[in-house]
């Protein structure tokens, strides 16, 4: 049963078509990779799915209910949680408080939020820095913290925009392991990444976008071998 259905979503910025009738869907429990060259519309799509941008046309449905045009906080409460490509945390709040915001805002009782935050902090190996303000954390630790914020309440779908970008391999492995475990437990993910080895390793299925359109949507290895995808990344072969 499809969990998220994206149907002919278009979005233009001035004369630039960032999304051009992009369509695909995710089944509940799927872990789908979203790849494409820079400027292909991946982040624009994530912004529309999470309510930070309004689509010009087309529709998005979550569990058969239309969710286009809902505000980010409403979507978060419906279970659409995201990570930002450029990390967003609360710099003057401790790492623990950062997680508590996410837990409490999604309706957890305070003691429950506290217990879950401590669990996530241990899972993501942030125990040493849990009482430091987010402003004092490294870039990688911030990514982990934002990543953790998405799982205080298991979301209906987690939209992860470049979680592995500019992150130390050890931290990357912590996140990848976490994604694997949650996926095995039935969590639905849409994972944007430029890191092909990770996509191959984690995602059974991958969607590739170019110039705002979906140009491939099948098993990950097949997508990466697709001449259209290779052409999008490397440009046309010289004749």
């Amino acid at each position, binding site marked *: 049963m499809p969990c998220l259905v994206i149907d002919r979503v278009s979005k233009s910025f001035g004369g630039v078509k960032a999304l051009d009738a992009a369509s695909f869907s995710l089944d509940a429990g799927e872990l789908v990779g979203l790849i494409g060259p820079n400027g292909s519309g991946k982040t624009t799509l994530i912004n529309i799915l*999470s309510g*930070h941008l309004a689509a010009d046309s087309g529709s998005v449905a979550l569990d058969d209910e239309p969710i286009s045009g809902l*505000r*980010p*906080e409403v979507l*978060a*409460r419906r279970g659409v*949680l*995201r990570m*930002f490509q450029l990390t*967003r*945390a*609360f*710099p*003057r*709040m*401790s790492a623990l*408080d950062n997680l*508590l*915001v*996410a837990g*409490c*805002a*999604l309706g957890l009782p*305070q*003691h429950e*939020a*506290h217990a879950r935050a401590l669990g996530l902090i241990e899972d993501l190996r942030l125990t040493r820095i849990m009482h430091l303000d987010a402003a004092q954390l490294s870039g990688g630790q911030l990514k982990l913290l*934002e990543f953790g*914020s998405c799982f205080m309440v298991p979301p209906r779908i987690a939209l992860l925009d470049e979680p592995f970008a500019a992150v130390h391999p050890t931290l990357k492995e912590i996140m990848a392991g976490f994604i694997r475990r949650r996926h095995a437990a039935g969590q639905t993910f849409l994972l944007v990444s430029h890191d092909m080895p990770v996509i191959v390793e984690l995602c059974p299925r991958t969607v590739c976008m170019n110039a705002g359109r979906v140009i491939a949507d099948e098993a990950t290895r097949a997508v990466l071998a697709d001449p259209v995808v290779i052409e999008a990344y490397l440009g046309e072969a010289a004749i």
Partner: protein
Amino acid sequence: MAGGIGTGDRLRAEFVASFVILLLVAVLPAFVTNAYWQGVVVVSMYFALLAVAWNILAGYTGQFSLAPAAFGMIGAYTTGLLSYYYGTGAAIGVPAAIIVSGGIGLALGRIVLRLRGPYLALTTLSFAEIMRLVISNSIDFTRGDLGLNVLGIFEERLAYYYLILAVLFAVQAGLYYLLRARAGLYLRAIRDDEIAAASRGVKIVWWKTFAFTLSAAICGLAGALYGHFAQFVSPELGLLSQTGIVISMVVIGGLGTLVGPVGGALLVYVLSEFLRDVGNAQLVVFAFLVIVFARFFRQGLWGLLLAAVGFWRARPVAPSPAAK
């Protein structure tokens, strides 16, 4: 789990410090028997209420409003007009002032919801000046710059002193419990990054409007009490320079802390009395202090105090087996 959620220890230290300050204020009349100086402390507590209210917005929610004095004026005129036309006392006037200023704050809060930084500051500044000019020019209704006489509550100055002190303490205590609970988490999250807060499910529209309304209502309460104390209200209460004083108090005391506005207001206002003889030199001094604090000591006097305590604790001592 002990002590609420979030950064509980920090908040508790700030609350205890402000409690100590208010305790000192409570015993002060035993030593300062001069009615004039007791009056100075009463006015400084009026400013402390405005400063506390402004700090909810600027310090905890990241909304830089320039309207605290205007909301104080609205509260003062609410009870002033009721007193002037209907002869009502504080029992009706003060709650009415809270409701009217809170209601106007709610409306303004909804209007400026999407505005940030300089745009929010300019819009609230325009609002403040418009309100002042409307009151100042509605001569038939408000007597304009002549001001209004307001019924007093007590005969004794000390009674006002302890009434306003009790109100200030109640507001501080209420705020402490509010900030310790979820509201504190949400407001600080909105201050730090509104987009991130929304994406984690925080109802930013609701909480920003709540902060704006609460802040305006506290200003209105302060203004109404001041009106009954002074037994006179005038449009001068809403002057931008009054807001400037409030901002300087919070910045000097410590923006975004519970104790900063209270300590800053009492200190700045009482000290400014000493500078009164030299005319407007007080404004020059405070403007200079605000620049120095904003540039070098973002956490204000409270931050300096914490740094001093930290320095003292970290001083080299004889090695003890318990040291980590």
